[in-house]
């Protein structure tokens, strides 16, 4: 009788969904994720990571020639790292701003392939922060 069989089918459909969920869990745990670190946590990390920190001097170089060079330090703390970045520099990039750089550590210098700034907190009142 069809009316007896169909709940089983629903269960099949739902278990497909469950299987997909497990698959999902697997892919996100096993790979395809980028650790987000502070400059002070960078030492010893292999592979691609993203580093969030505050831009510090000296800032030099040309992002479209040999690369923009700048320092990045922990937003709260003392750890720092030198960064070299080639590509499009975000408009909001400047000393004292918080940025996220994605790339890898090579010989003590962080070679970034992506650079993005976080909006300065104009959107919500500063006194909240």
């Amino acid at each position, binding site marked *: 009788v069809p009316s007896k069989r169909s709940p089983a089918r629903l269960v099949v459909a739902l278990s497909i969904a469950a299987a997909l969920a497990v698959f999902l869990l697997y892919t996100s745990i096993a790979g395809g994720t980028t650790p987000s670190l502070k400059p002070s946590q960078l030492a010893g990390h292999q592979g691609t990571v*993203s580093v969030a920190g505050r831009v510090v001097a000296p800032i030099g170089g040309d992002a479209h020639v040999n690369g923009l060079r700048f320092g990045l330090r922990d937003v709260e703390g003392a750890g720092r790292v030198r960064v070299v970045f080639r590509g*499009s520099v975000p408009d909001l990039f400047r000393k004292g701003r918080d940025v996220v750089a994605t790339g890898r550590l090579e010989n003590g210098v962080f070679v970034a392939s992506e650079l993005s700034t976080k*909006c300065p907190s104009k959107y919500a009142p500063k006194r909240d922060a």
Partner: protein
Amino acid sequence: MPDLGRAALVTALALLVYALVAGGYAAWRGRRRLALSAQNALLGAFGAAVVASVVLLAALARHDFSFQYVADHTSRELPLGYTLTAFWGGQEGSLLLWLLILTGYSAAAVALNRHAGRDVVAWVVPVLGLVGTFFAVVLVFVSSPFATQQAAADGAGLNPSLQNPYMAIHPPMLYLGYVGLTIPFAFAMGALLSRRTDERWIVATRRWTLAAWTFLGVGQLLGAHWAYVEIGWGGYYAWDPVENAALMPWLAATAFLHSVMIQEKRGMLKVWNMVLVGLAFCLSLFGTFLTRSGVIQSIHSFSVSSIGGWFLGFICLIVAGTTVLILSRLPLLRARTRLESLVSREATFLYNNLLLVALTLTILWGVVFPLLSEAVRGETSTVSKPYYNFFLHSFGLPLLLLMGIGPLVAWRRASLRALGKTFLWPLGASMVAGVALLAAGAGSSRVGVIAYTFSVFVLASIALEFLRGTRARKALGTESWPGALSSLVARNRRRYGGYIVHASVVFLAIGVAGSSAYQTVREQRLAPGETMTVAGKTLLFRGFETMRKPNHEAIRAVVDVYRGGDRLARLRPGKNDYFAEEQISNEVAIRRDYLGGDLFLIADQVNANGTVDLKALEKPLVNLIWFAGFVFLAGSLIAMWPDAREERRLAERYAGAVARA
């Protein structure tokens, strides 16, 4: 003035608490007059929210910098239009907008809905009161737009990227969508609380859900267009957490809109619908939470603020309450009929739902992954574009295909032979298209070819549906072809409006696939007089122009675009330097080509020696995305349009239902 605003908010809070408490008591004990007064309290709360909003607007218009909110988000040089849109440029104002829309919707929904039945509405009022109370509490005690300070001489200005005409329309659209999902949620809970778990709550809220869903969809497309013309990285969607925050409730609501049709027609999936409406509402709260809490790094996360905990608490409350309520009413939610075959309209709806929910949950997983990984492993990890693209392809492409199959499959059970006959033409058309695309060299992107082949299939099956329907009407009478077509649509607005929405999704898919899978990007440093080429066009850099505007200085690179010997256009990409805000913003230049693709120029870096680092993108078919927005809106409006015949049918049906009960 600020006192008036504060008083209005406190009044709104008091009225909403009354709607919650008195409305709840009235519904519980069946006190009709008390229930009516609770309804009136909702109306009154709307009035109070209007007063509060007017006070804030007036303060903005008068540059009253004794309001902290006005000082923090506007400046004297800011044009009046943007000064007024700063209403939703910040957190407190956005919350006030939420409250205003919520109370407005609540008043209208309660006043207008007769189908749902009096006992359902009696319970809807306290649910709406609860949601409203939450926002009013946050506005009164935590994040008030009426906080005052020593009046400053000038304000801090508005974020330059918010100084854009889209600012006037994109956020309110999204809010209308987010908040609109409260109404179906409240009616669903009302149905559960009053134990009236038939389809009446669905019928009563169908247009509300559709409207909220349309606002959310259009709002997102406007946001994408804003990002495309203003933010200037050459794209329109970046899988940013806050963008995802709007996409998730839209996907959940899409699933809900489809699955309620199954409940209406066949009385199935009752529990599922309750879960979906709860999911959609919670995701819309979560979206507001994400935008406001700063808990996840995002280009939109403007700062860590004090309201995150409140939102999280409220979301937990809603999730727990909904779960308990559904579980306690499970016996009432038993299906009238069962799924008879895996090849039937119901089954395709079910697959559509599973895919949509899977896609929603995948995105949710990606959004909260940084938080989870930090909690589990002590190290924050993020997932990026490849993750989202992978799941968009694996769930989105089958969804696209289903859109072509679903509408042509018979209810209850369909024979495979009949299906083969139905799909002969669409299948043939898509095969031809696939071969033609491969021959034309589109094979460079496998996903692109699959998406286009599926798109042709869906468009062909939609066209076939219109053709069959029109022919059948033509055969009935003496109508002309256009007359037959329009009366066909007019008589089945939901169905054919739905098909038009489907067509818009196909256009969207074509535009997205074209502009991402087949785009060309070139970058080069140019001195005045030098050229570069992109996609067969030559770009000649002539030099810089600078202009001084009231609140910013504009620098533009003048670039002439040639194809062969003909000059196609003069474009001026550049940058604006805003004085008060101390910010620079990128101003891109776009040469529109509605049939081909846009040429998109970014003056990536303006160098002191007079050279420019120019980035040029050729984005094929990108304009189909915006065109899809208009088609989407048209389809939704057709599906939503009031229909006297439908009203009559429903009135008869539920008069019968009441008589039986």
